[in-house]
């Protein structure tokens, strides 16, 4: 084979080595939603994993809190040698355990003490030699806790038991037999509570109509970074119920994909008006108030309303500067909530069910494009409702530190009762999910 000859393969290999062709613009528009759709299950999995971790932590904290609440086991001493302890009183579950081979006369026998309430159910174990006593309700009296029982001899008194010559309980007479509720110690400080809470928030919405254009608008709108936070004041109405109000600030936004913005349009703005462009969104109509901005819908979805259509103005022939390929709508609200908190569990870690309504007042509304980490002001969204109402439902976890402070963690789902837009056709209902965290002070 003659090496001086060039293989036809090389002609093509070298000729096409650095060849580049710009793909059609719609290619990226088709790729982007597909990536989003594929990433969604990952987001759901992450959310599920986070929820599982949260629940596990809450459960562990709850378990820990119950142990912290009643940590000591009453130790019975003074038993004759060779006989292991027969009475073990554990938190929440009082057990009288008779060791195997203990003769019946050495097992716990008590007399009824009729003037003291409280019951203890005595359940024989699988074998007669095991005896378990489960408290139904306990109460403190001057002489101790009395558990009328329903086994063997009808009732008995622990006080009598303690005084029996068979067992001794250290300081049983001196100190009442009492299981303190550690969680109560912190809660008797006052009925008021002030909290500072903050949460990253995920906003999204669903559309209840069947207009194809609105559905398309929604697919082009992606939630942006959102957060909420503020001060809450709660009043404890009863042992379990609290009423809470306060003042929150929340900010949320969304990104409009495919609306490309350019700067430097002012020299071509023959109308010398500010509202050169209108962009249809599910939140309302964006109107530009910056005469230097030129907007182009690169997805060809007719979202832009303008006098500068392709027939009148060709942006490719103008000296415009590319800014960003999407617009960002940002809204800020002041929230005035009215929340009811119902305590499900009261330990060192409290669990509360939270539900209520909030009125939200629109205080800021802006539309911008991102450029080099900064904002290029474009305009504002019009047709927004100034006042919206939302309902919320959540689960509050509160860890009580010694003293008056507590740590809060509150996953809250919020549904907006009226749409953000005043346009009746835009039946887009926003909802959000946030995990509020913060500290509370009781007084």
């Amino acid at each position, binding site marked *: 084979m*003659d090496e*001086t*000859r*060039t*293989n*036809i*393969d090389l*002609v*093509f*290999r070298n*000729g*096409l080595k*650095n*060849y*580049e*062709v*710009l*793909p*059609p613009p*719609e*290619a*990226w528009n*088709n*790729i*982007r939603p*597909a*990536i989003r759709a*594929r*990433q969604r299950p990952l987001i759901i999995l992450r959310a599920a994993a986070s929820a599982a971790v949260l629940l596990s932590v809450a459960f562990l904290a709850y378990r820990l809190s119950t142990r912290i609440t009643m940590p000591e086991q009453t130790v019975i001493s003074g038993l004759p040698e060779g006989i292991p302890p027969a009475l073990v009183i554990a938190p929440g579950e009082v057990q009288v355990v008779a060791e195997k081979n203990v003769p019946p006369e050495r097992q716990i026998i008590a007399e009824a003490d009729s003037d003291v309430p409280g019951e203890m159910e005595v359940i024989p174990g699988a074998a007669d030699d095991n005896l378990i006593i489960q408290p139904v309700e306990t109460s403190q009296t001057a002489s101790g806790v009395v558990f009328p029982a329903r086994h063997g001899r009808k009732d008995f008194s622990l006080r009598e038991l303690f005084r029996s010559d068979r067992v001794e309980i250290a300081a049983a007479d001196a100190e009442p037999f009492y299981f303190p509720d550690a969680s109560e110690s912190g809660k008797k400080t006052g009925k008021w509570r002030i909290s500072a809470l903050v949460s990253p928030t995920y906003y999204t919405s669903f559309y209840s109509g069947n207009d194809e254009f609105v559905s398309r608008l929604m697919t082009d709108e*992606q939630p942006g970074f959102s957060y909420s936070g503020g001060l809450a004041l709660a009043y404890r109405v009863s042992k379990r119920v609290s009423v809470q109000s306060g003042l929150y600030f929340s900010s949320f936004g969304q*990104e409009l*994909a495919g609306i490309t913005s350019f700067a430097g349009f002012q020299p071509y703005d023959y109308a010398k008006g500010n509202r050169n462009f209108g962009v249809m969104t599910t939140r309302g109509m964006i109107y530009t108030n910056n005469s230097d901005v030129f907007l182009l819908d690169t997805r060809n979805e007719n979202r832009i309303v303008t006098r500068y259509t392709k027939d009148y103005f060709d942006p490719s022939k103008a000296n415009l500067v590319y800014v960003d*390929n999407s617009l960002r709508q940002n809204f800020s609200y002041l929230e005035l909530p009215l929340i009811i908190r119902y305590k499900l569990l009261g330990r060192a870690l409290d669990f509360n069910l939270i539900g209520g309504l909030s009125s939200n007042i629109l205080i800021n509304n802006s539309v911008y494009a991102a450029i080099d980490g900064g904002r290029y002001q474009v305009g504002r969204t019009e047709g927004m409702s100034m006042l919206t109402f939302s309902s919320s439902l959540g689960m509050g976890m509160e860890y009580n530190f010694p003293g008056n402070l507590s740590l809060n963690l509150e996953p809250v789902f919020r549904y907006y009762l009226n749409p953000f837009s005043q346009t009746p056709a835009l039946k887009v209902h926003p909802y959000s999910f946030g995990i509020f965290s913060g500290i509370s002070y009781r007084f």
Partner: protein
Amino acid sequence: MPEIRNIINGCLKGSRRDQELLYRRYAPSLYAVCLQYSDNDEEARDILQEGFIKIFTNLSHFKYEGSFEGWMRRIIVNTALEKYRSRNRLYMVEDIDMIPEPFVDPDNEDYSGLDAGDLMEIIRMLPPKYRMVFNLFALEGYSHREISRMINISEGTSKSNLARARMILQRRVEAYTGIKKKVLNG
């Protein structure tokens, strides 16, 4: 210009900005590959779209052990192959092992007048079965054994398809060069 590693990390975190940056940076060269493997622009666009979706969803599998562009190119080529196989346009061609390879004499032939666009146009005129083998063998560097597995043909068929592809390409290159010379010289 952001580092490709930063862009990849951003994509892995779901950053739309980085996804678009990655697309804008590599789409032109990969679209050229798509054109090389497709019958028409629409098919090339489909390959690009499907290929990029695979790239984004499998980005976590890229371990920086080789060229990132090469890794993406392989995905695009595989996507083109899947499309080709799904169309089931293959039919058996007799094995011709002894067809001589066409050679171009650089002393007598001047191909400097042909640009990449011309070459692409020529390559796309090939029948799909020849084009596929030529692309995989001559441009991607696969062996006939590998090609036979990739597109489910025998090694002999791969060789014969390559030989025919080369023959057609040589004629067309010559024809294009002649036409261009005529046009340029008046």
